[in-house]
Every structure is written in structure tokens, then in C-alpha cells.
């Protein structure tokens, strides 16, 4: 029997019309509840739930540990999924730049500092949430508007060619797996 960590449960907006809830434990042992419709937005989580055979009856007794995502990112992800769980399928964009508009609610949610945003993208990639990935990348892309290469380096933390070379050299110098 699994022992549930003694940490506060972060309660998200309950879903009245859908009683099936799942529990997720972040890498820093925060517990989140998420509805079935919302969790389906994450291909990774939904595959896991399906493979584990979790059902409405046993879902809450079997929290899903997600070791690659911390509580802060998980909270944002759960909020996002709950918000968008009933969204209709996105239209096929032929031109992202022209057609794709980031909703204000999501812009607010993603108004976090760059480092957090980059971490959130890594978490989103791991959990395979297509829509959140699109939205995060939109925010990242918007930062580049009317910026010079030097400004982009600062915003995105990009090294110069010389620094890039030095990093590559140091990476190749460092001992790697043998054999």
C-alpha cells in the first residue's frame, strides 16, 4: 500500500459535472487533484492512467508520481488543463504569426519570469500537452518582437559565438561515459 506524503493538498477548481478525479504528486511532494477531462490534455498522463488501469473507483487511492515536474509548474499545468478541458479542437493554422492569438487568461497565467517559463516548457514537453506548449512558445516568440540580436541574447540567455564555442569545448572535455 502506498503511503501518501504529508503535504498540503493543492485543491483546484472542482468539476461538478465530472466526478472522476485523479491525484498527481509532483517531484517536491505536492499533491494535486485533476479532473478526467483536464488530465486528457496531457498525453503522457493519460497514457499512464490508461496503462495503470485507474478507474473512477480507485483513482484517488492511487496518486500518480511525476518526478520530473515540481509543484510550481504542476500547479500552472493543472490550472491550464482545467481551464481548457472543454475547448473545441484548435483550427489548423496555416500561419501561426497571423492567425494564432493567445487568450488573455492564458497570457496572465504565463506572465512568469523567463527561467520559470523555460522550466514550464520542459515540464509541458515531458507531459506532452500540445496546447500549453503552443501557448508557452507564443509567449517566448512574442518576446522577440523588434529586438536586436544583442537584446535577444539577454532575453533568451543565448551565448555569443565565442561563448558557445567555449561551452562546447568544455562539454567535450568533461569526462563522459566510458566504453
Amino acid at each position, binding site marked *: 500500500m502506498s503511503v501518501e506524503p504529508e503535504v498540503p493538498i493543492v485543491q483546484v477548481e472542482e468539476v461538478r459535472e465530472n466526478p472522476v478525479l485523479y491525484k498527481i504528486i509532483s517531484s517536491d511532494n505536492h499533491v494535486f487533484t485533476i479532473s478526467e477531462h483536464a488530465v486528457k490534455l496531457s498525453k503522457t498522463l493519460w497514457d499512464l492512467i490508461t496503462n495503470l488501469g485507474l478507474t473512477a473507483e480507485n483513482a484517488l487511492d492511487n496518486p500518480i508520481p511525476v518526478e520530473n515536474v515540481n509543484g510550481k509548474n504542476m500547479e500552472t499545468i493543472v490550472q491550464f488543463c482545467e481551464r481548457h478541458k472543454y475547448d473545441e479542437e484548435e483550427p489548423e493554422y496555416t500561419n501561426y504569426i497571423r492567425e494564432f492569438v493567445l487568450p488573455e487568461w492564458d497570457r496572465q497565467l504565463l506572465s512568469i519570469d523567463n527561467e520559470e517559463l523555460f522550466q514550464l516548457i520542459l515540464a509541458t514537453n515531458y507531459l506532452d500537452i500540445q496546447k500549453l506548449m503552443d501557448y508557452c512558445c507564443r509567449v517566448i516568440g512574442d518576446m522577440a518582437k523588434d529586438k536586436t*540580436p544583442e537584446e535577444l541574447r539577454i532575453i533568451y540567455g543565448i551565448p555569443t559565438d565565442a561563448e558557445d564555442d567555449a561551452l562546447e569545448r568544455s562539454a567535450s572535455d568533461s569526462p563522459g561515459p566510458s566504453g
Partner: protein
Amino acid sequence: MSKIYVRASTDFIRSSVSFDGREFTIDYRNHEDGCLVQWSQTKKKVLENSDFLDVALRDIECILDSKSITVMDYIIMNLWQQDDQSAQKFLEGFRKILEQRTSLVRARAFHMTSNTPDQTLQILPFMDPDYLKQITIEYPNNDPKTDFKLAELMEFKQWKQAETLYLFNISLNIPLKNYIHFKKISVDVSVVSIDLVIDHLQHRCDAQNPFVTMFGPPYQDENSAKEPREGWFFSIPGDMIHSIIFYEKVIIFNRFEKNRAKEEEDDEYNDIDTLPNNAVILKMSAEYPSEKCLLKLPDVAMNKVLGMLDFEAVQCLRKTCHTIRNFIDAVEPDSALTKLKISVYPNYINSLYLFDEASIEVKYCKRQEGCLVNRFGQDQEKLLESVDFLDVASRDIISILTNQKPVLKSLEVECCPHGILEGQPLYQVSEQFLSNLESYLVSRPKKLQVNTFTTHVSDETQILHILPHLEAFRTCSHLEFFRIEHGLTDIQDLMDPSYAGPLLAHNPFGDVIKRWFFSVCTPDRVLKITISLYQIVLDFDLLENVPEGVTVN
């Protein structure tokens, strides 16, 4: 010079005393029968049933007592090889000795190295502040330690009265005012913030200039206009130097290669961008790159980000570093160009790129030294030395067309702005440019798709540089309008005489126009070719618009 040096590891303690140029060293080791004491290569003794730590501490106590009246130069404690438990045990014993003393230890310099710099707090209060001039605290690891509880240390009289502070591998972010009483200081700072610079300016002309206290005396000289300046040079990754140069009212931040040779043409306003011979190179502790680096994103995210950037942003991003440049070149993000107009003149080529919400116009001018590139609406222009303007323009245009994915709404190539004939300079230039463009169009895996193609050429041979390499006209659903301006009146002779027609009509200016109709792959549409005095227009029309009685070829 007199010095006490104590080095402690988990089962070994060395104490050294120096005075009058002589040094005495005693080693204390943990031994199975007690404590092994060794004071020379050959002289050693096992003290049975004795703990090596107790023996060592007792001896250190004696040494300190013997030096109670004199002022020592150095007390050096090196504890970094101890595990936490042994270090704590040693420090407790040492502290007990210090507490039992009737006077504080008199030393001019105190140096402590340990895995937990906070342990300094346990010993430093026992140094006599009236004598202590220099404090050195060292963290043995190369990654600067940031969680040192300096706030507590700053309350000590020893801190307030000392003149020199060295913090090695300890990175701090505390206001400069807490340092400026020191005459000399060496500390890692994780960020050289604007506040730091402002602080510096506030303390300029002050003996306690924080930049001086933090980074030592500046490099001082004059520029070629005899304006005095002072600066500091920091090494950054990639054999680069970051310089901060202060003039009376100006601060210049510069970054250049460490080995950059001085150039003759550097003028007085080109600030120091070579390393002066006698400059001291300092080290910045800021780690690079930070976690927020775009390079750390997975490819899937990078691809999406690129897809959301407009053409100009992609080009700027491409300039940042070669990893990103390689990535962009491999992905070939869509240029998303809607219209392209190229005008060729004898001495320059103008390219106008239109996007959904923006336009870019670039002019490539022929110069004796090379090619002068000028972007419309921006003051900057750049001289590319020893290159041909035709080659530069062709390369840029081709690189943009290469990444063009959707159908281009309009392609306009103007090679004959005022009418030219074979043999004139413009003819040569336009021929060369069209050949470059043709080579590219031929090499494309898929023909370029355009809705409207307009060209203005000197003769039909020039049309053939481009037209055959656009998607085939009669089967193409993309090309909708094609117009050729020409200076020759017999171009209609190119039409195959076996075609039926033409339909004769008049344009709004009263000129006679001849029109042929051709069937195309879309059943309800026809291709319409109209020849007037100065132009040929090819466009599509609906079959129902073909006048009655006219044959569709």
C-alpha cells in the same frame, strides 16, 4: 614574520609555527594505540591511549599562550579536508581553548578555509580587533558559495575594523555600503548590477570607491583625445574580455577577444577594445549560460518558437550564436513572404520584401571597395569589403526564397527600368543577376510557386531565365497573373501561328489589343493571353466570360 598554521583533516592534524625565519611542524595522527606524534622526518612517538585531537589541541593551546604578548602575522586554519563531524569536534575544542584565555588572540591576519564558511563565525570573535587587519575566508570548491551568513559576520568588531577582506569562492549579493570601509577587498559577485555602477558613480573621486575596493585599482590611461579614463577588465568564457571603462561622464561596457590586435584606424571614440599590456584581468563569477537559455529547450519547442517569429526576428535570432544559426538553417523556417520586388540598376539592386504586417527594403550598391548595403528606414549602412554587389544581392534574395513555403503572391523582376539594349552596362548586370536567379530556380527541388509574376525585361531571352522555372503555367493553379513589359513590337510573333484567334479589341486608351484563350486543367477556367503595344498579360478568366464565337485553344 610569525605564523601559526593549523591544518586538520579527519584523522590528522598538522600545526606549524614560524618565527624568526624558522618553522616547526608537528603532525598528530590517529593511531590504533593512541596518537602518533611526528615532529621531523625521523622523530615520532606514539602516545598510548591518547586521542590525537586532544593532544593536538593541548599543544596548540600552549603555542597560543606562548604568543600571548607578541602580535603574530598570520593565523591560518585549514579545515576543508575534515568531514563535518570532525570539523565541528575540532572547532568545539579549539573554541574552548580560546574561551578560557584571558586575552584575545593578537594576529594581523586571519585566514580560514573550510567546507562550511559559517564556521568562521565560531573563531573570528576571538581575534583581537585592535590588531586584526586582514580577514580571509575561503571556500575550497570552485563553484562560488552563495549562502554564507555574512550578515552576522558584519556585526563583528573584527569585520568593522579590518582593512582588507578576501572572500575566495564565496559569492555575495549585499549592498556595497557594507564593504566600503575596507581598504581592499576581493569578492566574487554574481551580477554586476546597475546599482553597483550607480554606487560606483556616487563614490567617484572618493577614496572608498566601491569598484576599487571590489576589483582593486583600475587601469588608468588617456584616450587619443587626452581624456583620462579608468577601467577594469574581466575575463569571460571563450577567451573574451569584458571591459568597463569610466570617463568623467561616460561609462562604456565593451566586449572583445582577449587576443584582439590593436588596429591602426581605432579612433579616440572607439574605446579600449584591445587588452592593454599591463592590464590586470579579473574574473567574474557569474555563471553562464543561465538556466533560462533558449538552447536548453527541446527541439519541438524550438521549432514552435521559430514558427511564431516573423522573418525579421528569425534573422536577428540567427545572428546570436552558431548553435542557433545551425538549428535555423536546418529547420528552414518559412520566410512567409507575400511579395517580392527586385529592381536591377547598373550600380545597384533594390529588393523589396513584403510580409503580412511588415516590409523590408534593402539596397545593394556597387562601390569600389565592395558592396554597400543599406536598409530603407534605418540609418545604418554596412560596407562589405571586396565583394560584388550582384553576388551579395543574389545570395540574400536566394536565401529568402529558399525558405519560402507558401505560394508567393507576387514576384516582380524589373531589369529594364528605362529600356535597355544589349551591350549596355545594365544589360550585363541584369543578365548576370538573372543567371544567378536562374541557377537557383533550376536547383530547387520543387518549382517556385507564384500567383502573379511581373517582369520588365529588355528582350524575350531574359524572360526565359525565370519563366520556365516557375510552376508550369497551364497546369498551375497558383500562377494567376503574368505580365511582361517589352520594348519590342514583334513579340506577338512568338505566338504559334497554329493557334486560333486572336480576338481583336481596344483597351481603355484606344490601343488595339489582341487576345488568345487557352483551356487549362481547371475545366471552368481559361488562360487569357493579351498582347498590346508594350506588354503581354497572361491571366486566368472564367470560361463563361469568353466572348461568343471565340475559339478556346
